[in-house]
């Protein structure tokens, strides 16, 4: 099998999560109890046998560096290959590249030093538990220049609207890209491309002062390229707004969704920690909720996501909420439709209620 190398490119992703992304980039947003958004894509690559992955980061990259660290938790702490976290640090005065092309241009080494002939490229906002093997096989069989992974959705949701839609012929060849809201064939922003072609398109984009590799280099070159569309039909999410973030956390609490995402395929890897098991006390009452290790629960938790190390005191109630790492909810507090960022401390007797459409959000380290 010809080998595949990976690239996670978050240069063009904006920080959509209001208070939650003041100090971290979108890709580093905590999700589903113990993960960050980027874990899903990175795990998919690793689980597909990709053992070199570069991450093109934008600003606020410290959050990504801290999380991914050496890559050891993804089995990517290798002497050769492994993970390459590439923040923007460029010092070539003669460099004329723009947008994400600056990354491609300044990190050419990454592509040259590998023997892989194809690259799988992804953002961080499309979440699924999938392997790329089948798409890659198809890519090779059809000898496509590029293979785009698409999701045929049943209902178009708000988070689909910024995604490109793909038109294709009966053999899966892409005939057009658009943002047509009627088209339910949603592009996942994951694609496989021949490495030689990638390098050629990078040169071309730079020469013509372009600033977006996919839009300018691939989409606008469609007439000259053979692009396949590969349909993925498993459980998927697009997270690109507070609303989609909250709704998808809640939606994951449906047993079927939870099982599809976490138990259907390989496990999603994330940064490991030292948290002990969850301690349930005498009077705890928990239902339809997921709890990460390190929590201590004495109160009531319903339809909620608790990250690592959350403390829920006696008679406290948490409903339809997302409570991030090490939050403390004291006696008698009542939370409904709430998102608490890390280390928030809710005092005894407090009542916080948001709406399903617009949850109440508390930023990191607040005391309420």
């Amino acid at each position, binding site marked *: 099998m010809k080998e595949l190398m990976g690239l996670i490119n978050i240069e063009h992703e904006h920080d959509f999560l209001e208070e939650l992304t003041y100090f971290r980039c979108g890709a580093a947003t905590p999700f*589903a*109890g*113990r993960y960050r958004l980027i874990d899903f894509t990175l795990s998919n690559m690793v689980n597909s046998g990709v053992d070199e992955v570069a991450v093109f980061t934008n600003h606020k990259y410290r959050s990504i560096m801290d999380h991914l660290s050496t890559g050891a*938790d993804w089995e990517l702490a290798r002497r050769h290959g492994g993970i390459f976290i590439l923040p923007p640090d460029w010092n070539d005065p003669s460099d004329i590249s723009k947008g994400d092309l600056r990354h491609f241009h300044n990190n050419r080494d990454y592509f040259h030093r590998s023997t892989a002939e194809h690259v799988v490229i992804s953002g961080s906002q499309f979440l699924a538990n999938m392997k790329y093997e089948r798409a890659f096989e198809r890519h090779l069989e059809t000898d496509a220049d590029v293979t785009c992974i698409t999701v045929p959705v049943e209902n178009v949701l708000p988070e689909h609207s910024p995604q490109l839609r793909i038109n294709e012929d009966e053999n899966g060849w892409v005939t057009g890209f658009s943002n047509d809201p009627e088209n339910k064939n949603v592009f996942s922003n994951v694609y496989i491309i021949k490495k030689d072609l990638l390098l050629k398109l990078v040169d071309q984009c730079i020469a013509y002062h372009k600033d977006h590799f996919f839009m300018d280099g691939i989409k606008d070159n469609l007439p000259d390229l053979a692009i396949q569309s590969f349909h993925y039909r498993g459980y998927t999410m697009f997270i690109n707004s507070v609303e989609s973030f909250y709704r998808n956390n809640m939606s994951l609490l449906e*047993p079927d969704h*939870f099982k599809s995402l*976490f*138990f259907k395929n390989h*496990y*999603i*890897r*994330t940064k*490991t*920690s*030292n*948290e*002990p*098991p*969850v*301690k*349930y*006390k*005498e*009077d*705890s*009452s*928990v*239902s*339809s*909720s*997921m*709890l*990460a*290790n*390190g929590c*201590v629960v004495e109160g009531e938790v319903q339809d909620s*996501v*608790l990250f690592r190390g959350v403390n829920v005191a006696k008679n406290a109630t948490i409903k339809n909420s997302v409570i991030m790492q090490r939050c403390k909810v004291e006696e008698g507090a009542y939370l409904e439709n709430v998102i608490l960022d890390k280390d928030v401390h809710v005092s005894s007797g407090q009542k916080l209620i948001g709406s399903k459409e617009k949850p109440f959000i508390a930023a990191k380290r607040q005391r309420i």
Partner: protein
Amino acid sequence: MKKEIVGMLLAGGEGKRLGLLTKHLAKPAVHFGGKYRIIDFTLSNCSNSKIHTVGVLTQYSPLELNRHIGIGKPWDMDRQRDGLATLSPYTAQDGGSWYKGTADAISQNIHYIDQYDPEYILVISGDHIYQMDYRKMLEQHKETGSEATISVMEVPWDEASRFGILNTRENLEIYEFDEKPANPKNNLASMGIYIFTWASLRNYLIEDMKKEDSSHDFGKDIIPAMLNDDHRMFAYRFDGYWKDVGTVKSYWEANMDLLEEDLSLSLNNREWRTYSHDSHYPPHYVDQDGKVNNSLVTSGSWISGSVNHSVLFERVDIGKGSVVEDSILHPSVSVGSDCTIKRAIIMEETVIPDETVINGEQYDEPVVINQQNIADFNGVKGGR
């Protein structure tokens, strides 16, 4: 490379009294406390006490134990010139021999210890559950100018005859060691934790190797020999939680102890963390029918039934309508629907069919269940 103190962790015992639990597994590698193995507690004590040069002596069924400890990464012992070393029995030019006793295991590895030219040596066992700062014990050892310091805890007088008792003067200087005395003169029991001045111990070990009638054991041979020579030896008082998990019953009790509110040992203590490996399982899920109280539950589990006063390891499934009480469920145990499980220890990857009833309350010890023996214990539903 000189080190002030080197730790020697005895992890080779068979743990016969743990029965099925140690049939194919070294005792220190037995699962404990929802996500740990027994040895994690002593290794974490070393790490938290900043003793990073530790030899782990293995002998019995070490495959999983070796895989678990590796080169000591979770305990920050993966170091280049010192760190953790696994010391298993080996052959040399004059042939090879198995470790014949606790002291013999150390004697056969004198060359390992000598590499670090230590002043002191800490000897501990990999099968006790406790959180202890060995540095404090070392400080006392230095202050008293002892050749040996033995950690002790007070036991109720009426139980003292079940322990190795140290008879001490008022200043805690030891003048006598009484193994399971019929009429105890003291109630300070040895916890099997020793600090020796290496130069002194080294001589005793070499002498002991030559004695054909010796059982090569610290408690039975080395300590009495040192006392006999009137060496300065002190007891070190420990007041915290300590438990030898040597039997199925004490293993079960120690797990259940973790559910107590006011135990001095805490897995949630951020100043004295218990380190182990972590998995990539998702957070556990309690569904709308699930009910959990007074229990430990770990990543990857799925609770549709009722769990009370129990310890659940990773990736445990509890089916709808099932009731689990006073039990310990090892990793990847799957309990079907409408089961009743009481006072049982269910071993790794056991699949329990729907409507199974296992009631350990009728036995003296909690029952230990695996895939092979499950039929022997399956009672009739409602027959409790």
